[in-house]
């Protein structure tokens, strides 16, 4: 463990962490954010083993469960708000899938490891398991929320979580079983007639690897076109492409806006830079 190797100063490391992330933290909140419940239990067990009297050397550490919960709730609410602003057509299930992916254990623990949280977190096992890292990082977000307010925490969450979506396709994150049914629902909402699938191009029909391009036409105008190995696969792919176009999540959409938010909109946490 790094804290047991030579040259380790916890206070200096925590100060360096707050400078590295370019945020002002209240240091005692940050220190409580790094304390996990398993650490407190292991410390108490160790003290009992060494035979120390419980009242004499009581641990005065609070653990980070409350901060972690507040951080998680804020992060989910803020990310859901961001996505609703950026992709207004996306249904609630899609937004939920995106937010779940961004707050999942692997992603959060990957971000936490690359910010050196695994050295600073106090926990029982080494190396720290991913759920501990996730809880610690969410507690750090909670501590930032308490110290600097929702605006800065929002910018922090945006800067560290949204770049993880770069290069990812919508349907890699959101599992959709029946894209054709979903597409029909979307089109009925917009009062467009049902799509008519037609084969647009085909190559190598009688070989082992045929390629069919199926296009979906609504009122004789092309909605989307998708390739596939068999006719059914091509039709499903065309439905997915159509959904991507409708929700505005194509590959050539405008990239995310990371500029500084305008002042004066902090009243209802509505930040205009979406």
């Amino acid at each position, binding site marked *: 463990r790094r804290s047991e190797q030579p040259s380790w100063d916890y206070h200096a*490391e925590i100060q360096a962490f707050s*400078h590295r992330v370019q945020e002002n933290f209240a240091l005692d909140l940050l220190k409580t954010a790094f304390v996990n419940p398993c650490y407190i239990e292991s410390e108490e067990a160790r003290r009992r083993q060494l035979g120390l009297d419980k009242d004499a050397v009581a641990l005065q550490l609070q653990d980070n469960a409350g901060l972690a919960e507040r951080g998680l709730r804020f992060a989910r609410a803020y990310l859901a708000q961001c996505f609703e602003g950026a992709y207004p057509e996306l249904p609630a299930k899609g937004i939920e899938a995106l937010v779940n992916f961004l707050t999942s254990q692997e992603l959060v623990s990957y971000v936490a490891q690359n*910010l*050196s949280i695994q*050295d600073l977190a106090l926990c029982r096992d080494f190396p720290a398991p991913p759920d501990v890292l996730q809880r610690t990082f969410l507690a750090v977000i909670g501590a930032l929320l308490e110290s600097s307010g929702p605006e800065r925490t929002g910018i922090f969450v945006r800067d560290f979580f949204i770049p993880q979506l770069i290069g990812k396709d919508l349907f890699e994150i959101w599992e959709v079983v029946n894209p054709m049914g979903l597409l029909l629902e979307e089109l009925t909402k917009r009062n467009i007639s049902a799509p008519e699938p037609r*084969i*647009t191009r085909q190559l190598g029909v009688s070989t082992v690897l045929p390629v069919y391009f199926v296009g979906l036409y609504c009122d004789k105008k092309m909605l989307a076109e998708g390739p596939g190995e068999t006719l059914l696969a091509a039709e499903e792919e065309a439905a997915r492409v159509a959904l991507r176009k409708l929700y505005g999540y194509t590959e050539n959409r405008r990239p995310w806006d990371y500029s500084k938010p305008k002042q004066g909109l902090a009243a209802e946490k509505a930040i205009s830079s979406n």
Partner: protein
Amino acid sequence: RYVRQLQRLQLLFSPTAADARGARQFVEEAAQDFARQHPDVVLYVSPHSGPGPAPVLRAEYLNGTVREELIASMTSEEIVQLATKLANQSGLDIIRIRKPFHTDNPSVQGQWHPLTNKPSILTVQGPRLQPQ
């Protein structure tokens, strides 16, 4: 936002050896300025007494790589330059980069595939309609 990839710098030197003179000067004069200019790097100074191993500057990065540089017989300014060079690096391995360019969007209008410019089967080519 920019996150500096250097986590901490450990300066191990011995107070009596002759080749650690630059390291001692650096600690006396420039170490405080360096630490003030880089508040997100933790600087540990650990003199080990007596003639020990050669003076070394060990840099630890956020992705775990540890890089050791010998600072024997280097002047204080050279150590400052070396430390700023390490502070601006990232922790990736120093290997030969095969290509100096990389793009995540290799094609803007869509990559060519054998069917790009072939007309679709559905386009109907009939006799031209006479204008009214």
